[in-house]
Structure formats: structure tokens, C-alpha cells
């Protein structure tokens, strides 16, 4: 590529701000590559603006449509795009709720009663039905204090259900104890 070709290329980069000099015009007339480039540039200048005239019938129809159409406020850009992060956040929350181990129903591991006895050893006997027994566990009711009275009055409502629960515990202990005794021997 000679100097004139380079100059012509530089001119083309600035076109159409700068007029084509006589020297470069003469060069373009004699250089095939530069002539092709110039023809393309001229075609862009003359051809791209052409062919966009609105014919009267189309114009009338379009004008009617424009004036009959209601004004339309453009959607706020932030709102338009806010659905994407919101949807992603919702999907993450949903995934956590569905797959996180905390949300799964916890099934307590159960051990066979004999193995439990091996681990725990013999359980102390607490006879909840007879508070007069010397080894009976002290209860809040045996304490004599204003706070103890208050607690006793409050716990009185739970006396029935608690007795049922303690009875169940007794039954479990009775099942476990003989095996624990066997294990000691």
C-alpha cells in the first residue's frame, strides 16, 4: 500500500467531515481498491437516506391512528427489570424452604429398649403417685413459699396430664429395668 492509499484511507476515516482533496481524488480515479472504497462511501451517503418517503394514503391512515390512540406512559425502567431479581429471590427462598434439612420433619432416632438400658443403666425409682415415700422426688408443692404457692396453683392445671405422662414413664421404666438388672448380673 503506497502513501496515497494510506492518506486516502485516513480521509475515509474522517469522511464526510473533510472534503476530498484533488490529489486524493486523482489517486482514487487511478487506484482500483481506493475507487471501490470511494464508491461505497458515496453510495452510503446517497443511498442510505433514500426511499423513506411517506405516501399520502399511508400518511392519512397513520395520522388517524396516532390521534385516536390513547397516550401511553412508558414503563418505569426499574419496574420493568425488577421482575428478574424478584423471581430469582423467590426461587432461592422456595428452594431453601423445600430442601433445607431444618424444614424436614425431624424423626427422633429410636433405640431398642435393651440397648437403651445398656447405655443408661438402671433408672432411679420415682413414685409420682405416692409423694409420702421417702425417695419420692420433691415437687414444687412441698416447698412453702409465696412463689411456690403461685407455682403450685399454676401447675395445678397441668396435674392431670402430668400424671398421665408420669404413668407412661413408669411403664417404660418397668419394661427397661429387668433387662438393666440382667445386664448388671
Amino acid at each position, binding site marked *: 500500500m503506497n502513501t496515497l492509499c494510506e492518506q486516502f484511507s485516513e480521509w475515509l476515516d474522517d469522511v464526510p467531515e473533510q472534503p476530498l482533496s484533488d490529489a486524493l481524488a486523482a489517486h482514487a480515479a487511478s487506484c482500483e481498491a481506493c475507487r471501490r472504497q470511494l464508491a*461505497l462511501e458515496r453510495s*452510503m451517503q446517497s443511498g442510505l437516506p433514500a426511499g423513506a418517503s411517506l405516501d399520502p394514503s399511508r400518511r392519512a391512515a397513520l395520522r388517524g391512528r396516532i390521534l385516536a390512540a390513547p397516550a401511553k406512559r412508558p414503563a418505569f425502567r426499574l419496574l420493568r427489570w425488577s421482575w428478574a431479581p424478584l423471581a430469582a429471590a423467590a426461587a432461592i427462598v422456595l428452594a431453601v424452604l423445600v430442601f433445607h434439612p431444618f424444614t424436614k420433619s425431624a424423626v427422633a432416632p429410636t433405640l431398642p429398649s435393651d440397648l437403651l438400658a445398656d447405655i443408661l443403666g438402671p433408672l432411679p425409682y420415682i413414685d409420682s403417685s405416692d409423694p409420702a415415700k421417702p425417695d419420692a422426688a420433691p415437687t414444687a408443692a412441698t416447698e412453702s413459699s409465696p412463689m411456690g404457692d403461685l407455682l403450685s396453683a399454676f401447675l395445678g392445671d397441668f396435674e392431670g396430664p402430668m400424671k398421665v405422662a408420669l404413668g407412661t414413664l413408669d411403664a417404660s421404666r418397668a419394661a427397661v429395668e429387668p433387662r438393666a438388672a440382667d445386664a448388671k448380673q
Partner: protein
Amino acid sequence: MTAAVAWETVKRAAGGDSAAKQSLVETTLDNLWGLAMRMTRRPDDADDIVQETYARAFATLSGLQPNGRFEGYLARIATNLVLERWRRKQPKADVPDDTVAPHALEPWQTVADLEDEQRRLAAIWKAVSRLAPEPRAAILLYYAQSQSCDEIGRILDVPLGTVKTWLHRARNQVRHDAEALLASEPAAGRMNIGDAP
């Protein structure tokens, strides 16, 4: 060349004056449709863009500050609508033949010259349609709408330097691609008008 829109007319249109609205449309419709048509290359698409542009412009008239040209505001809305379309779908590489306007034969031109010009123009449009949306809009605003780089910057909401970079690259790309397209097609046989059988 249409007359510039007076801001007084815009103000009246914003206040609900339907005659002022009609006046705005009358004054700006041809230029705006020309812009939309050059960008979309399809008359029906140009109609849609123009209608949407006016609908949006009329909805925001009351908040419009009277600086710059109202036509520039319309061009900005229309260009952004076209850009949205281009971003949504890949630009079509094919250009309808009927949208490449035929030129009148100049006294010194031959039929072959005219055919060459048509082929060149079709190749240019094809190359333009392959550009990325923003440079494509920039080159069309520059060549087809004769907008200055400053005005293009305002329409596309980018700095002047960005406009110049886009234009520089787009021009080189279009020339390169168009030349490659022309080289891949067989040249039209040259025939002078006087040689017609």
C-alpha cells in the same frame, strides 16, 4: 424540510389542546416516519414505531422541559423503541429488494452503472443490518438522517467520543462487509444505453 415545532405548541398540547396535538403530528410525522422507515426497513414496522412514539411522547408532554428540539425528543423515543426491537431479535440479514430505492439514471450513467449502484446499495444495507444495535443506529442517524455527532449522542444518551468510535468502526465494518459481499457476487455485465439491442 419541515418547520421546527414551537414549544408553545407543545405546552398547549400538554394542556390537552387537541388542535395543538394535531399540529405537532402534522409538523413532525414525515421526518419521524422517515427515521423509523430507514431503521426498520419495513413500512408496517415504521408505522408501529411512529404510533408508539407519539403515544409515549403525548403521555410525557407535561413533564417536558423546553430545551433542545421537540423533534429530537421524538427521535430519541423512536430510536430507543427500534433499539429495543433490535435487541430482542437478531437483525435480519436480508433486506427486501423493494426497499432499496431505484435511482434515476443520470445522463452520463449507463444501465450497468445503475445496476452496479443498486448492487452496491443492497450490499451496504445488508452490511448495515449486520451491525450491533447501537453502532447501527449511529450510522443510520448519521447518514440517513444527517444528524450531527452531538445530536446522535443526545438521542442515544452516550458521550460524543462514544458516538465517534461507533461511527468509525461501523463505517469500516460496513465498507469491509459490503465489499466482501460484492466480491462474492458476479458483477453485472456492462452495457451502455446506446448499445441496447
